[in-house]
Structures are given as structure tokens and as C-alpha cells.
């Protein structure tokens, strides 16, 4: 089975690309290839000029990844886990300590720093995973469904956090089913279906492609482009 075919995507520095598509479209597979978990049978991925297959270590140093369902070491405390992740991501001791303290404060997790990860709620674990993804200050963030199963308060927090990443100039590849988030943040939107990118561009260009009105919402555009037989 071919999970992806003919996918070509170029993301400029500081851009946020919203990766949309129905379930099984290949979004997570594409993201796993970008971060080096999966190897493509053909083709290549370069991040900051580093080929992920040929120079995996160099590429991994500039990428931060949040999986759809991040599994953490439940037997470690929050601070222990973040220290461990920072270490394996090559962060020096002094900056690591200050980044962890700062992040715990930003994410309101200071009180939980000595709690075992297994005792935290889903939202708190997601926050810890987000901190882990950024400890080495990556230039590129790959976020796979960062809002899944989060309560509204945590969703709002993560939403704000993604905005802050845009302001910092971080490049973000964001896979989501939440079209509002994509509409709010994405400078480019890629719509995937059955392993291919069927549309790519700004919201305006996608509206034109879909033939919807100039003030149409992204969900209308998305449905128009992904419903068989309705493409222009």
C-alpha cells in the first residue's frame, strides 16, 4: 500500500503551514517522515538544507516534534523528564535548567514539577510534551494534532502558544482537524487526500481553487475540495 504519493511541499522560514485532510489522508505519515521516524521509499526531505535520511542527526537538531498521542515516561517526574529530554537533544546544562524553569512557569506547571508524569491529566501531559518539543529551541516545529482531546481552557492556551511561536519566527508544520486554528495561524494551507496534496496555498488561493466566495470559511473550502466530484 502506498501511504503517500507525489507529495511536494516547500515551507519557508517563519511560515506556518496548516496540514489538513480527512482521516487516513497521510498527514501523520508525512510528519513522521519529516521528523525521521519513517523512511520514505523514494524522495527526500530537507530541513534547513539537511537531508533527513542522509544527515539525520543534523536535521533532528533543528526539529521539534509533538506526536498525536505523546507517550511519556510515566515513572519520571515532570522536571526529570524534561531534563532527560533536554540532555538527549543536546542542550547544555545551564540553558537547560533555565529553559525548564521558564517553561514550567509559562505553562503553569511549576507546582507539578515534582509530580510523576503518570499522575498528570491529559492536558498537563500535552503541555509537558510541548515543552519537550521546544527545549532545544528548534527552528522547525512539527505538531501533529496538538489540540486533540484537550479541554477548552488548555486548547486556548495551546492556541496562544502557537501564536507565540509564529511571533518568534519558528517555522511550524501543523496538522489539525480544527479548521479555525488553521485559519487563524496558517500562512499556507496544504490539503491532503488519499496520500497526495490536492491543494496548497493561502486561504485566498484555495477559495479561488474551490470556487467558493471570497469571504467563505475554510471549512467550506475544505469540504468543497475534498468531496469527490466537486473539485473545480
Amino acid at each position: 500500500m502506498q501511504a503517500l504519493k507525489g507529495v511536494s511541499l516547500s515551507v519557508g522560514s517563519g511560515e506556518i503551514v496548516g496540514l489538513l485532510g480527512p482521516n487516513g489522508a497521510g498527514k501523520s505519515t508525512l510528519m513522521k517522515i519529516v521528523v525521521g521516524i519513517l523512511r520514505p521509499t523514494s524522495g527526500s526531505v530537507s530541513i534547513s538544507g539537511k537531508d533527513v535520511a542522509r544527515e539525520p542527526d543534523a536535521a533532528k537538531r533543528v526539529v521539534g516534534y509533538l506526536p498525536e498521542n505523546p507517550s511519556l515516561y510515566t515513572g519520571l517526574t515532570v522536571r526529570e523528564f524534561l531534563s532527560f529530554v533536554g540532555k538527549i537533544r543536546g542542550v547544555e546544562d545551564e540553558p537547560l535548567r533555565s529553559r525548564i524553569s521558564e517553561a514550567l512557569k509559562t505553562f503553569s506547571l511549576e507546582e507539578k514539577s515534582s509530580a510523576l508524569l503518570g499522575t498528570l491529566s491529559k492536558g498537563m501531559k500535552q503541555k509537558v510534551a510541548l515543552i519537550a518539543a521546544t527545549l532545544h529551541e528548534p527552528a522547525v516545529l512539527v505538531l501533529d494534532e496538538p489540540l486533540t482531546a484537550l479541554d477548552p481552557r488548555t486548547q486556548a492556551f495551546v492556541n496562544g502558544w502557537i501564536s507565540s511561536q509564529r511571533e518568534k519566527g519558528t517555522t511550524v508544520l501543523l496538522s489539525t482537524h480544527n479548521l479555525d486554528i488553521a485559519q487563524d495561524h496558517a500562512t499556507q494551507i496544504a490539503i491532503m487526500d488519499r496520500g497526495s496534496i490536492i491543494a496548497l496555498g493561502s486561504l485566498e488561493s484555495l477559495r479561488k481553487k474551490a470556487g467558493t466566495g471570497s469571504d467563505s470559511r475554510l471549512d467550506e473550502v475544505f469540504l468543497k475540495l475534498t468531496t469527490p466530484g466537486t473539485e473545480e
Partner: protein
Amino acid sequence: MNSSETVYTLVRYWMKGRFTRATAAWMVIGESFAVGLVLLVGGTFLSFSSRFNIGSGLSYVGLSLLFAFFLVGLVQSGFNGSGLPVSTADVDYVFTSPVSTSDIFIAKVSMNSFTTVLLSFPPILTLYLRFGASYGTSPLAALAAGLATLAFFVLALFFSADITLSLNSRLGARVRLVRNATLVAIAGISLLPLTLLIPEAPPQLAQAAGVLPSGLAARVSYSLVSGAAWGSGDYIDILLLAAWFLALFAVGLRLSRRNFLEVLQINDPDSEGDTLKDTKVRSSLKTEGRSLGAVVRAKERVIMTRTKEMRSLFVNALFLSGFMVIYSLSGVFQSSPTSFLFLLFIIGSFGSGNASRWLEKERLWLIKTSAIDLKRYVSEVYRARVTPLLLVLAPVAAAVGAPLLLEETSTPGSGLEIGLSLPESLEVAALMMAGGMYFAARYGQSSVDDTLATQGQDLADVKRFVYQTLINLGLVAPLMGFVLGAGPLLGLIGGSHVLLLAGVIGVAGLAYTTLVLRFILRIAGESLERREDL
């Protein structure tokens, strides 16, 4: 739907998901392998027994201890909450349907029993047929003994399910205390046949285990296979076994009426937060100023300490050392190559089991997306895990070796074999652990508890089991060859060179172990690099 239709429907659909063609094919291969192994081990055991004129008593002891370990393992599994395995899909779809929880209980235990019987029957029957041929009894007797043994296996599954069901039932403090004391007593009494190995220990002690299912099943099975004359006592044993069977099933049925759903909360990962709420832990993972390797090792140690892993390692080592010391003191441990093999295997197999608890599982995403060398990562994890294993096993080997060496001071050949077998048993354990980690890296991991809980759900693991056993045996074979060859070699070059020969063989064994370990850990790291099922 009536009750039997519900049970049938549930079992049928649970089965559908488990038995794919590939699983069935590997099951046949695994069963053939198990049958071959049983023939080999059974033959070796019979030759060992007849050579040292140990007599039939040891066979009964062996069988009753084997059953006792099985029972104790399931008691432990029941206490871990995995005596009645349920999946998330069961919780979401089966328990929310208008189906009686008793029917679900019956379907669950029926299915576990079915897979257990299916997987266990061929090797058990083979073992009894092999023994029966040696004793000159009919194949029908072996078949009857196999059925008695299977009945015991199934009732042990009921027992485990009952314990899990009782965990969250509203038992008063006093009843809970009684239950726990009873279970400890059952575990203790079931292991009493060990005392038969102690010279001059009263045989009545071992007979006490005869009231438990393990003792009853062992006695019935052994009587049938050995062709001993049948008396009224044997019929009483069968009746008692049947009574245990029915009583444990009835208890489970009773407990399943009220507490089944609540028990599930124990195993629900999302409820973990409720039981551990507000737990503050003093940090013991220091990363500052330490190398990456030291941090990985420290992380592994912290996780082992905070889970039940380290505790179970010590408890198992305690059991192992008790068994080994009693066995070595019993006098059956003569200066025989077979006995060394036995020693090496028992101690060494500990490593393999220990490795199966290496559970990175879905957390591998974290490691694979970091710029680290996975081969080095695996080596560091191995170092962290093998150290406590060797620290626990070294006193066991010393405890076994000291009395044996004292007995054999007058015969340099035997002394040399014993002396070499003890450090090399640790090397066997280290190799088997590395082999286990390689297979965990290549095929994924499942803990011992998972294996017990799923009862054949992951029948594909058979493939891993076959490869692992064969390759591990191949890996440790040279070490065993060194031990077995030491005595004859000393005979050739003269007893005065005993220390020199011990040194040469010891160094050769160590060099071999080091080389093989480096190789296995390298390919384990490479396997992790290739894993894409994250």
C-alpha cells in the same frame, strides 16, 4: 439473546480478531518447536534420573513444583490486576451493552481457557507420552494425565481472575486480610514439595501441598503416567480437583455480578491519576554535569526503581536462590555435566525474562526524533539493566557454588567444572538478557504480565519466542562447551595445571561473551533504527 448465545457471540468475535492466517501458521511452528523442546528436555531429564538412580520421587517433585510455580505466577498476575484481561474496546462496547456481567465473565474465562488448552495440550501430551513410554504405561493414561493437567491450568486461570475481581470488591478490612493471608498460605504450601529435596526433612511437609490444586494435579498426572496402582486416594484426588475447579468458577461468577466494571478502573490508564493524586517525588535523576550515557543509565535505573521491576527482580532472585541452594544441598547435584547444564540454564534464563521488561514501547518516538546514536542508547540501557541483574545473581551463584566446591575439593576435574560454571552462569544470564533486548528491539516488547494477561492474544509472539530460544541457546552453547570440556581437558593435560586451565578457559569465556554482547547490542540498535511501527 439468552446467556449461552451471548457467551458464544462474545467468544466468537473475540476469536475472530485473534486468529489470522499468519498467527495460525506461526502457532503451528511454535507448537512444533515446543513439542521438540519437550522431547529433548524430557529425554535429558529421564536419562539424568536413571543415571543417578534418583528414582521416581523426583519426577513427582518436579511436576508438583512446576505446577506450584504456575499457580504462584497466576496468583501474582491476579494481584497485578491482570487476572481478567479486558481491552478498551471491551469497556467501550461490551460493557455498555445490555449484557450480563456474569456472561462476560464466562466468555472471558472460556476464551482464556480455550487458548490455554489449545497452546498447552500438544507439549503436555508429548511430555506425558515420553514419560509414559519410559514407564511402560499406555498412551491412554498419558492422555488422561494431560486432561487432568489441563483442568488444573484452567482452574488456575479461574483463580487468577477471582483474585483480580476481588481487588476492588467491597471487602471489609478483615475479609481482605483473610483473603491475603489465604493467598500467601496457598503460595507457601504449594511450594512445600521443595522440602523433599532437603535431606532428612519430614516427607509429611511436602504432602501438605496435596490439598492444593497444584499438588492434586501433580499427584493424579504422575500416578497415571507412571502406572502406579490406583486406589481410593486417587479417586478422592480427582474429586478434590473437580471441587476446586467448580468452587473457583463459582466464586468468580459470584464476584463478577457486582464488581466487574469497578475492577476495570484499576487497569484503566486514565484512572491512574486518581490513585496517585498529589504524589510528590524527590528527584533522583541528576543530569547536570553528566554524560549522555550516564543520564540514559540513570533514567533507566530511576524507572526500574519506581516501578515494581526492581522489587520483582529481588523476589524472583530470592525464590531462585532458595531453590538452587536446596537443590545443591540435596545431594542430587553430583559432579555431572548434566547438572552443570541445569545450573547454567536455570540461572541464565533469569536474564532473558528480565530483558522482556524493557518497555520503551511507544515512547520510542522521543528517542528516535533525538540526535542520538541508537546503538549507543541500547548499550547504555543494557548496562543499566544488566548491572542489578548480575548483582542479584552473583550471590545466588556463590550460594550454590560454595557447598559444591567444598564437596569437590578432592576431585580437581569436577571442582574445575563447578568453579567455571558459576561465573559462566552469570555470563549466560548477561548474554540471554542481551538476546532478549535484541528481540524486544526488533519485534516490540511485551512484559511478562502482558503475556500472562493476553493469554495468547499476541500469538504472533510465538515467532519471537521460537527465534529467541533458538538463538539464545546457540549463543550460550560455546560457554557451556567450555564448562563441559574443562574436566576432560584437565584429564589430558594433568591435574597440576588446574589453575592455569581455569584461567585460560575463564578468559576465553569472557572474551567470547564480550564479543557476542557487542555484536548483539549493535544489531539491537540497528533494529531500533529500522522500527517504524511507532
